[in-house]
């Protein structure tokens, strides 16, 4: 795999050229943030600013979240005449590419207005895991060594090496397609996509707990929620103009953090993500109180995969299950809950057992 600093050089050259030749109006990338273990999104318009672009183990944000805003449908003819949609260049990893594909499929983006610069992703660092690995020491700076591990300088001046594999984000450990499935330009060498099996393993591990224990886990996790909406706002697939959770007439969910409202909030999001979530991990990364919203989203994605053989964002030609219908679609889940044999396994006895009458 190509080293990060080489990718960074290539990326700067590519972005500079795209902007200088006016192939794009805007280039979306990452730049160094003021604190270690993270980067900030960078909206580049001037070719000479391309030197600010960074490529390092902390480029975890899914920049696809910004795209629907840039391609927002004009409110009226006047607005449409004023501003044509921009041409946007963007650096993207496997997960970002999955989101871009899903957004194109959902008609939120115009493919011809995008110049996609792909990088085979070695997996990005989870900021919290990195901070825990230095045991809460204040980190003055962090970078990458020749092996792709993270070198951090802590407050007393000592340098520590954090093995990348151990501080990778959960979503990155589970990632099956680190290669961007859609791209116009590829930087560095390709990597082979392979299923690590980690996602299934984690779901199975949680699923093996008794029902009471699972419920207790959810309640404990959700009781920490402060309803800041960060999981929704960081999600590229949450682009609804008027979110159900924000509606006031009628008001479906209270704005507060009472457990019933919080539970509804997270269930609504999870259900709206079934067959759409690209498993980028943006929700978990954004959460200020450590809620893993992926726990539900991952399980629902696996259900959709088992039922329809569909993986969101992995192929632009595939048809998302929510936008199609076939006479032989499995529909056991339409069954009255009381008729579902417990425990419900989509691949197991449920498929013979509980058809709706």
């Amino acid at each position, binding site marked *: 795999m190509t080293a990060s600093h080489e990718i960074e050089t290539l990326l700067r050259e590519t972005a500079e050229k795209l902007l200088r030749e006016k192939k794009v109006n805007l280039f979306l990338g990452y730049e160094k943030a*003021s604190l270690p273990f993270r980067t900030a*999104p960078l*909206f580049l318009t001037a070719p000479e600013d391309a030197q600010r672009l960074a490529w390092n183990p902390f480029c975890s944000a899914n920049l696809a979240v910004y795209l629907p805003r840039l391609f927002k449908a004009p409110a009226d003819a006047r607005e449409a005449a004023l501003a044509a949609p921009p041409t946007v260049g963007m650096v993207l990893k496997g997960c970002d590419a999955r989101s871009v594909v899903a957004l194109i499929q959902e008609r939120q983006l115009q493919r011809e207005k995008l110049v996609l610069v792909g990088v085979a992703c070695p997996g990005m660092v989870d900021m919290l895991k990195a901070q825990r690995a230095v045991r809460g020491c*204040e980190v003055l700076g962090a970078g990458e060594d020749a092996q792709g591990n993270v070198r951090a300088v802590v407050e007393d001046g000592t340098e520590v090496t954090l093995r990348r594999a151990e501080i990778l984000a959960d979503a990155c450990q589970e990632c099956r397609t680190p290669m961007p499935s859609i791209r116009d330009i590829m930087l560095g060498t390709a990597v082979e996509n392979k299923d690590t099996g980690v996602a299934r393993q984690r779901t199975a591990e949680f699923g093996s707990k008794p029902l009471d224990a699972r419920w207790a886990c959810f309640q404990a996790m959700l009781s920490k929620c*402060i309803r800041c909406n960060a999981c*929704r706002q960081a999600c590229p697939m949450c682009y609804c103009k008027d979110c159900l959770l*924000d509606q*006031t007439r009628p008001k479906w969910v209270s704005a507060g953090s009472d457990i019933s409202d919080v539970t509804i909030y997270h269930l609504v999001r999870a259900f709206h993500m079934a067959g759409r979530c690209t498993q980028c991990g943006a929700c978990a990364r954004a959460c200020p*109180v450590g809620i893993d919203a992926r726990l539900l989203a991952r399980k629902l994605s696996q259900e959709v995969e088992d039922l329809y053989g569909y993986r969101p964002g992995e192929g632009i030609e595939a048809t998302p299950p929510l936008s199609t219908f076939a006479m032989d679609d499995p529909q056991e889940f339409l069954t009255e809950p009381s008729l579902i044999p417990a425990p419900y396994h989509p691949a197991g006895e449920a498929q013979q057992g509980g058809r709706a009458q």
Partner: protein
Amino acid sequence: MTEKRISHTDLEGLLGRLGERGDVFAPGKDEGGDVVLMGPRHDGPVALDYRNFRLSPKAFLLPQNQTLIRFEDGKAQEPSVPDRETFLFGVRPCDARAMSALDKVFLEADPPDPYYAQLRAKTAVIALACTQPVSSCFCTSVGGGPGDGAGADVLAVELESELLLRPRTAKGEEVLAFLGDLLTEATPAAVKEADERIRAAEDRIAPVKIDDSVQRLGHAYDSPLWEAAGQKCLGCGICSFLCPTCHCFDITDEVRGGTGRRVRTWDCCAFPLFTLHASGHNPRPTPKERWRQRVMHKFRYAVENFEQVFCVGCGRCVRNCPAGMDLRTLLKTIGA
């Protein structure tokens, strides 16, 4: 009343004594290993090795969900007022200072906010001076400091083997008098050690050049930087909800038939709904205007209204922004 001291080993006893009078919250490790303001506590170790809590303690005075009125069978009832005292031990000076800012909004208003006033009157804050600031801290640039006692009733300073307790208010003196026999008089050496520790912490906090940002903001309403900030902002409420001074709220009635409640919940200027009019018009239609409001409110309007910047430099918004935005960077450059 003069300063007192207590040995580290007697701290649990001190909190136990306070527990006889009210609910005590003190730093403790949660299941994830994070130190949070935990309670009401009974016994067990107090964790003193923390920088600051992930969430600000403002929720003790301004709960995220606060029932103002209950409706039953069509009749309104005031909810019962808490009669137990609350003791908050280990609040950092930045967060205590934020409470003094909230006091200006809710207590010095005419009329004062009764819901806030009830909770504030029943709460005693024993702040713990900061000895381990982090790089995102900037309290010294916004009028505070690691040994600042504003908003606190008692300021505690952790020394080598004991804690120095400095009363800051009449309530603080009363609390120390109540703890009387557990405490000993502070020695000049202890006072000296406390001052040295606070000074050492102060030296570790990098100053941010923002003392003239209040003036600069006066002619920065149309700055292009708002657009740049709004472009990156995801529109979540992390910065507001974690901020110890943000205090905007919404009030809604949750009623079914004649039964329900009127509830006050935290609100946030980054949310599209915040200024949405019933007509559908929104005077702050994009993140650009919302970001400008957030900064202007804290650093300009608050100064005009309360003669105080509504930022205490705790750094939570800097540490937790999912878009990696740093308020300090904007403040340094805006209107310059």
